[in-house]
């Protein structure tokens, strides 16, 4: 039987379905700036909060969508576990919003995306039905993987109510190193180091300087760092300065992002194969994920940015674009667009959830 907070949400969904009115699913609002513009009456998920169960020996935590990320991470750190994919909190952040936005931080290229840590969830679909998909175990292939589909879906398919997440141990040791080099060298070096089984956990290149974070077993971090120093002339970063650097990068507090968020120019998040050469686009750039995620602050025409990204085998999304929020994502092929429309229809037949948040037509 749903409890009162859950029932209130179900009732609000059913009422909206009945008259086809738009709902705007909202947690703490930390990602209000992200994606398409907000439409409709607020469906407030913050009342639906609390950690339902946490089994450190199973590496699984189950929490309601409105649970603040800070509460979740505090519970996990007591057992040396964590959200190793480093989702940004942007000063707030809830479990449901973290999953719906699907954003991951500096460690993503090494550990996986938000989706890779989702084990299961319960949702309210557009018919007001409470559905559960996946479960609390990693090895689970019963039916279609609908819970992982919700990661990054921007709330257009349904209301996330509760999520079960895999929560591995946080690395025992970490150390960071820096090396002046060109972008081309940075791409080659960081990928070579990963291929050589060095415990590379994050990398960032900006203005001719590459920084890498090694993380894992003490022995591996120590010997890996010694190799970086000996063979490549890398300089060690001081411990607390390094932690601050990666935290600022994760939360987009670093000067590059501070400038971006107060600018009229678009901040692009360009996602390309890691070894893609310089895209040669005007503006300031910061490259993460061993080359696979490239931030670009630019007033270049959107068509040019997208064309270069697509030609490289990737795509560009307008991460922060206050003047033009209807061009969030790159267009899809015709067959994929058909599937998107049909999937939306199958979950949300009256089109009430987060209209326009992913694509204007969805």
């Amino acid at each position, binding site marked *: 039987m749903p409890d009162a907070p859950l029932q209130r949400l179900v009732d609000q969904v059913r009422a909206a379905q009945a008259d086809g009115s738009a709902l705007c699913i909202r947690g703490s609002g930390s990602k209000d700036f992200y994606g398409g513009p907000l439409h409709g009456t607020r469906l407030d998920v913050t009342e639906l909060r609390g950690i339902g169960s946490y*089994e450190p*020996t*199973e*590496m699984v935590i189950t929490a309601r969508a409105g649970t603040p990320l800070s509460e979740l991470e505090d519970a996990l750190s007591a057992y040396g576990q964590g959200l190793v994919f480093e989702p940004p909190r942007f000063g707030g952040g809830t479990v449901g919003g973290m999953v719906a936005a699907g954003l991951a931080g500096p460690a993503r*290229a090494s550990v996986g995306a938000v989706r890779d840590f989702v084990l299961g969830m319960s949702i309210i*679909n557009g018919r007001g*039905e409470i*559905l*559960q*998909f996946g*479960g609390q*175990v*990693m*090895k*689970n*292939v*019963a*039916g*279609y*993987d*609908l819970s*992982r*589909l919700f*990661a990054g*879906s921007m709330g257009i*398919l349904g209301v996330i109510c509760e999520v079960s997440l895999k929560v*591995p*141990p946080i690395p*025992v040791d970490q150390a960071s190193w820096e090396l002046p080099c060109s972008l081309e060298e940075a791409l*080659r070096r960081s*990928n*070579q180091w*990963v*291929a*050589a*089984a060095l415990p590379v956990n994050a990398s960032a290149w900006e203005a001719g300087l590459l920084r890498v974070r090694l993380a894992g*077993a003490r*022995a*591996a971090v120590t*010997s890996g760092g010694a190799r970086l120093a000996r063979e490549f002339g890398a300089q060690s970063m001081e411990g607390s300065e390094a932690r601050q650097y990666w935290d600022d990068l994760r939360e987009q507090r670093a000067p590059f992002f501070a400038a971006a968020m107060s600018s009229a120019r678009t901040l692009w998040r360009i996602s*390309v194969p*890691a*070894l893609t050469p310089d895209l040669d686009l005007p503006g300031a750039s910061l490259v993460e994920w061993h080359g*696979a*995620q490239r931030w670009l602050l630019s007033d270049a025409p959107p068509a040019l940015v997208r064309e270069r990204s697509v030609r490289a085998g*990737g*795509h560009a999304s307008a991460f922060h674009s206050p003047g033009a929020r209807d061009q969030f*994502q*790159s267009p*899809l*092929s015709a*067959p*994929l667009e058909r*599937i*998107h429309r*049909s*999937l939306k*229809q*199958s979950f949300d037949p009256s089109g009430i959830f987060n209209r326009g948040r*992913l694509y204007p037509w969805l």
Partner: protein
Amino acid sequence: MSAVSLAAKFDDAQLRKRQELVLATLGAVLPPQALLHRREDTVPYECDGLTAYRQAPLVVALPQTEEQVAAILRICHHHGVPVVARGAGTGLSGGALPHRAGVTLSLARLNRIRNIDPLARTAVVECGVRNLAISEAAAAHGLYYAPDPSSQIACTIGGNIAENSGGVHCLKYGLTLHNVLCVKGFAGDGAPLEFGSAALDAPGLDLLPLIVGSEGMLAVVTQVTVRLTPKPQLARCIMASFDSVEAAGAAVASIIAAGIIPAGLELMDKPMTAAVEDFVHAGYDLNAAAILLCESDGTAEEVAEEIERMRAVLQDNGAAHLSISRDEAQRLRFWSGRKNAFPASGRISPDYMCMDSTIPRRRLAEMLRAIAAMEGKYGLRCANVFHAGDGNLHPLILFDANDPEQLHRCELFGADILETSVRLGGTVTGEHGVGVEKLNSMCVQFSAAELEQMLAVKRAFDPSEILNPGKAVPTLHRCAEYGKMHVHRGLMPYPDVPRF
């Protein structure tokens, strides 16, 4: 009623006419040797690894190129002919069981490795490339493809995509989903599709996790871009024996609680240990209630540090005997029993049925006690191997298939194991898929609304329901016939109502 569901009811005369139509239309786009229809040629395709279920297809098509695959789909879609995709046919849930009025689309000839990029650590391969062949091709670069299902010498990467296959090392290295960047293929109507990207994400909804594990029902995958992993410098294995399953289970929990993620963590119960020791003579402790194999891999320093931590935890949890492999030969010997669980079981019983489910790790002792009770109830023996790291259980029920009464009891025993798994908070399939084998059990794991949502997702991808109809997700009609009730999250509905 769709063309496909009409086809399911064809009589023999209609089937013959249909076969002629299919042969004529596909014959226009395929060379003669790529089309099989004579019984003696199609027999090998009548079942997959679930040999108890057999069905002759109308036709087997063996394309060699993606263009041919697309042409086959366009033609079948036009005529409402169901299409069942098949890789190596090693699947254990009947996912590749043919449709009596359909085409079995064998993808085994799309077996070219297109590209290996050692610096980017990716490989682009056609769907028919064998899992192990990818690792063999990558070995020269010090890389391998991590997911290692037991059938990896034969199974195809396309099949791995269909089932989201795991393997002994998936606790540390992930499932197929975690090791794939991009898949290309075709929709049921032959339209080209691409899911995921060579980049780390793609625009719009993340459809890759929907495709991986979709058992050939949402799209036909023809090309896969996989992630390659650096080969670890070395691996060492601890073999530990325990006087009780409870103690072994507690040891497993302690390993995880200590923040250790072993490369492999496997358990064999006493009956299984007896069976395999008789077969491989590896020196297993026959008195042990449970044997645990706990593996560490990485650099020499990492392994030294981790093996010592593992040894301490296992010792603290009351391991009666404990050996650490001193060299590669001994490590392989420790594993030989576990890896030969199936043939070893085949020696002590005319037949066995390998079950597959997942439970939360901490419920293992409870589950094994329940299985021991079922042995009495159904009059059949059962030996167990357990992917202790992730809770995935493989009970092997021993029986004689020549006795139809035993087969029936075996199926009831299997269904009981699956339903108990759901009651304990787990799932009816950990890695083998639902196929046809577990359609009924899906009625227990999911509510009517959840099944309807899945059926709607299927229709969103494949509105004509051409692709592998009748598999994986049961209709509500079927659930009503099966008559079982949905058991929700370990809680029985109407707990006060007496059970018969």
